[in-house]
């Protein structure tokens, strides 16, 4: 558990794999969602084009220093989160930079990007950004609660905060997964997961056309490109944590891809089938449905 220089290229490799996988997977899921609506949907490579286009825009404006730094915070949060968590169990190569801290670090680092992004968006002075942030923060804090409870339940279950050890404890059989040993925690966590994916019914934060698109209203060009990059890294990083904590981790890349995809699909499934909650509705939903499960999970461990 110490730093070696070789970890840097290894981490970059992880990053590369995850970025590409994320770009393709999100496009693929968008395509699936389109097919649900009997549309063709975007080309599978559309995300790359959008990304290039946004990097390739010629002009941009800035509202100030924090506005400029916001996307940097955002992406640092995503990349950091990805790298603080081991991607592939049992692989020294893809344990990334997890020597720096344990599960708690990952959990709290989630907020790093959120905070920086919120600061940046707020400096734009657009009330729509601020409203979006309000909604986002309100909702995410409520969603974070069952998540924290579930995670803690798992930590208590395995009596460790080290992600690697938690994964290790789930090896051997599918029945060793937390999904089966502690189903309440997993259900609570998955409910929280829905809340943090910005998909219906929890997408009132962005609420396109209403406020116009929430926090990123003022972001464009390369700022937006950075945020799009984060948009593919961050959910994957989050799903990696879920995989590790609840679904037995991944011992190689194909399993990794599969599990990440399937977990991600859960929110897509729910998303295409449900309308949007207002913020206070979603807060209540998390507190009434998800939190008791989390509490039970902790009490019963």
């Amino acid at each position, binding site marked *: 558990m110490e730093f070696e220089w070789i970890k840097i290229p290894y981490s970059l490799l992880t990053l590369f794999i995850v970025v590409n996988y994320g770009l393709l997977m999100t496009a693929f899921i968008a395509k699936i969602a389109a097919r649900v609506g009997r549309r063709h949907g975007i080309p599978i490579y559309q995300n790359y084009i*959008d990304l290039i*286009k946004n990097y*390739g*825009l*010629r002009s*941009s*404006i800035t509202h100030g220093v924090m506005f400029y730094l916001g996307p940097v915070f955002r992406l640092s949060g995503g990349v950091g989160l990805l790298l603080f968590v081991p991607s592939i169990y049992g692989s020294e190569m893809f344990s990334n930079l997890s020597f720096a801290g344990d599960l708690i670090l990952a959990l709290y680092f989630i907020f790093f990007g959120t905070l920086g992004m919120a600061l940046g968006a707020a400096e734009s002075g657009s009330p729509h950004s601020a409203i979006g942030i309000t909604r986002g923060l309100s909702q995410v804090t409520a969603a974070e609660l069952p998540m924290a409870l579930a995670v803690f339940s798992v930590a208590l279950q395995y009596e460790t905060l080290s992600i690697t050890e938690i994964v290790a404890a789930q090896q051997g059989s599918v029945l060793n997964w937390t999904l089966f040993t502690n189903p309440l925690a997993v259900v609570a966590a998955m409910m929280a997961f829905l809340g943090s994916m910005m998909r219906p019914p929890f997408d009132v934060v962005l609420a396109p*056309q209403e406020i116009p698109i929430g926090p*990123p209203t003022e*972001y464009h060009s390369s700022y937006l490109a950075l945020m799009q990059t984060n948009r593919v890294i961050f959910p994957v990083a989050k799903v990696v944590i879920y995989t590790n904590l609840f679904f037995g981790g991944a011992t190689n890349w194909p399993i990794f891809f599969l599990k990440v995809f399937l977990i991600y699909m859960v929110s897509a499934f729910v998303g295409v089938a449900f309308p949007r909650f207002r913020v206070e509705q979603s807060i209540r939903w998390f507190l009434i449905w998800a939190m008791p499960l989390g509490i039970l999970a902790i009490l019963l461990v």
Partner: protein
Amino acid sequence: MKEELEKRIVKGPDGIEFEVEPLRDYYCEAAPTVMPQAYSKIIEGFFNWARAESLWILGFGTGCGAIEMRPLMTPRFDAYRYGVQWRPTPRQSNLFIISGYLSVKTLKRAIRSYEQMQNPKYVIGLGSCTINGGMYWDSYNTIKCLDDYLPVDLYIAGCMPRPEALLAGFEELKKLIRAGKAEGANQYAENFEWYKANQKKVILDWDMPDYNW
């Protein structure tokens, strides 16, 4: 001049009075500049390809044409497969479809939105009204000639054109972009004075800065 834009004397918390001039203090006064292309032709071509394949439309419908755009999202037309999508904020859009007649009041908003988009940006005029006023040719309150006010890349004629015509228009626009001929934003910056003069001629209560960043 609207009351909220007039110069006003304000007293600071320390009791010292000073003047606030909203147009100067609250708005960036810089004029738009012509944005150079990328260093090399190849990169610019590559970017143009990406721009062409990723058309983000500003969700701003001005006339009857607004209703023609909705079907594009439906399974029947599904414009997404062409890399087209709608964005709710001008900052992130690069295609502005003027979808029908523009009253003077709407023109002001259209100009503001157009100027808030980032270079390069494209304008499509949809329907006869944008071309020559169409059935509103003698109206006291609609403009008859869009390209006097905004640099239009492409007109789609008809009253109203059907969604298929729009899809065809997108394809035409893509060709223009890939050919590097869709430089409306730079054109606008180059002929800024002329555009402004035209705009101010019809917009009698000009209550915003010359360029809305």
